[in-house]
């Protein structure tokens, strides 16, 4: 760490850019946000708030400079903004891809994980914990922890461990301990609860790296600020390459970290329409009796409540019990969403749209076969949206390619085999037991 007490370098200024002021003072985004956590965790999040203000906002000890340098050298930033020639032709509009799939690890997740693990180091913490659903945030955190030489424990639902074995292996290769969570249904929300429990016992020397713009303040603003590098670059690249701002920015939304990262610096550009594409799952109909919402469209179909430390939009039953969500992409499979997105949707600044499993899978094949980019199934929802709504969009559209699809090949084979999709290759040779 550098000797400088505080720096006013250009990099330090970046985190003070317009569009990133919301929520910084009190953790509130209109009615959303807040700090709904057990008393035992309050001192930890107060300490974290203080560290966020000093290191991230004020660039104390040159934190932001080191963060940006490591994002460049270890992460490979900046990622390109690439013109998608075939899609541009297909939709008769300029389609640009923000290639977060080219970031180290294959997804935008590293922006946040590297920022938080580095922050933990500046705070003098000795141990990292994190939750993971599909394993994307877990693998990013494990990479960052190995890179920065911090011991790391990842909590993951037992069911998710069985579904995502390669990611579990990746985390272990990077030296992290993976703890299976057997309570409840063994998925992301149980893993979050379990990680909070660990944190409640170990707050003094441990930092909890939350994987999205969710949770109690300061996590939503802090994760947004780390991810905002996406829109910061995309905005400059768009001006440089096309001479102007895009008319539309499209990003998929689960918890919402790639979404808010792609939107942050465009929020104040009123000419730019922002589209948050949620997982419509198999249907938007809810099975109240079974407590199941066969989708993850909390912005589009959810309503206000309190979950995992924040007031936000949720999929819940009429009693307030949280519903089991579903999506073809496990990374979008979460019953809540970041409070800032809930606010921006209420304000009319962000348009929420739901794209179902079928359209997402078609988007997956379309991008793979026409542009040579295999997207994550999460990202594929944004391309499902493009197909369905391109006529409503302006002449220059930026789509955030939040991650690559290598991790989803097994799921893609299985799901494709059950459907009849135009652009898809014949999958039978892969499902025949070879």
């Amino acid at each position, binding site marked *: 760490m550098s000797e400088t007490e505080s720096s006013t370098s250009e990099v330090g200024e970046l985190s003070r850019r317009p569009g990133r002021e919301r929520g910084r003072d009190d953790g509130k985004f209109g009615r959303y946000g807040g*700090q709904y956590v*057990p008393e035992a965790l*309050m001192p930890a999040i107060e300490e974290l708030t203080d560290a966020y203000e000093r290191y991230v906002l004020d660039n104390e000890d040159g934190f932001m400079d080191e963060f940006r340098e490591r994002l460049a050298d270890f992460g490979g930033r900046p990622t390109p903004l690439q013109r998608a020639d075939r899609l541009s032709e297909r939709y008769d509009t300029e389609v640009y891809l923000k290639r977060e799939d080219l970031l180290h690890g294959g997804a935008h997740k590293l922006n946040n994980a590297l920022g938080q693990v580095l922050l933990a180091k500046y705070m003098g913490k000795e141990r990292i914990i994190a939750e993971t659903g599909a394993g994307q945030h877990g693998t990013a955190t494990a990479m960052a922890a190995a890179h920065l030489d911090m011991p790391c424990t990842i909590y993951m639902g037992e069911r998710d461990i069985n579904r995502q074995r390669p990611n579990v292996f990746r985390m272990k290769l990077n030296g992290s301990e993976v703890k299976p969570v057997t309570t409840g249904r063994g998925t992301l929300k149980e893993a979050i609860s379990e990680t909070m429990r660990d944190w409640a*016992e170990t707050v003094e020397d441990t930092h909890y790296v939350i994987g999205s713009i969710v949770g109690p303040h300061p996590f939503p603003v802090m994760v947004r600020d780390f991810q905002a590098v996406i829109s910061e670059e995309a905005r400059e690249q768009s001006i440089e390459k096309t001479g102007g701002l895009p008319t539309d920015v499209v990003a998929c939304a689960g918890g919402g970290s790639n979404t808010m990262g792609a939107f942050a610096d465009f929020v104040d550009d009123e000419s730019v329409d922002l589209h948050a594409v949620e997982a419509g799952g198999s249907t938007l109909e809810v099975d109240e009796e079974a407590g199941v919402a066969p989708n993850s469209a909390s912005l589009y179909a959810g*309503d206000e409540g309190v979950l995992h430390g924040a007031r936000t939009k949720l999929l819940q039953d009429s*009693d307030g019990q949280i519903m089991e969500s579903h999506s073809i992409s496990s990374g979008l499979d979460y019953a809540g969403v970041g409070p800032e997105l809930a606010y921006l949707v209420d304000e009319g600044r962000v348009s929420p749209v739901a794209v179902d499993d079928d359209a997402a899978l078609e988007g997956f094949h379309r991008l793979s076969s026409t542009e040579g980019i295999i997207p994550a199934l999460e990202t594929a929802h944004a391309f499902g949206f493009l197909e369905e709504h391109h006529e409503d969009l302006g002449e220059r559209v930026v789509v955030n390619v939040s991650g690559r699809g290598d991790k989803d090949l097994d799921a893609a084979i299985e799901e494709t085999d059950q459907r009849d999709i135009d652009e898809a290759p014949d999958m039978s040779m892969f499902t025949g037991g070879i």
Partner: protein
Amino acid sequence: MADTGNSEAIAEAFADGPAYVPYLVVGDPDYESSKAYVEALDRGGADVIELGLPFSEPIAEGSTIQEALVRSLDAGMTPDRFFAFAEELDVDAALVCMTYYNLIYQYGDSEARSASDASGETASAGPRPFVERAAAAGIEGLVVPDLPAEEADPLREACDEFGLDLVFIVAPTTRADRLDRLMERVSGYVYVQARLGTTGARDDVSDQTTQSLDRLREYDVPKAVGFGISAGEHAERIVAGGADGIIVGSALVDIVAEGVEDDLSTAEIADRLEALSRELKEGAERGYAARVEPAESR
């Protein structure tokens, strides 16, 4: 201030001698046997009973209680059934509801919500309908582990309107400025978390307890210590150390869980709960005697 409490029943529970405050999850493992278990706590000497209303994401609970919450939810527990349960109970102890804020916030809100869906706006009635219904069911107080003092004003107001106490948890890590904020809003009793971590029975009682009690000495509200108490001697030591009451959860929930596991009858499980209750209550009284007598003989 102790005398600013809303519930007379809770004030009385702490008035003479130490209060034994047991916790069970309502509806664990099913509605009817759970009623027998809660009534057994009462026979065993409970002064206040904390009734757990299960939420699907209980971030402040250890695995013992979390599994009990899952059993109860799987058996069909809902806020309305919870209130019916409280109404049907035949107990002397004061009843307190322990649950998470989302259930309180959403209660009675479905009409407002379906109306709001049409208009595209959310119109929540806030925590008031829940508190009104709880008061009607004979609930005297609320403990909401995920509701910090900073967000608690609407619930505090509703509790004052309907005569309920609002109990806050103080942790070993709670800083002085936060302590003041909590103590301005607490009533009935303060839940002193004996050590860091989530709920769960432990063998030893942390000396973080003594420190916490020392910090709270200047506040004139009853102090009930919880987290990790599972035997009469823990109760004795904690009360001798200055606690006005003891809160016991996981050790009791464990009895239910083991009973279910071993296929014991409802009556056998109830007997065990009553026996442990008696042990804990007697331990607390011994601790109280040890604290009071030397002072009196001086």
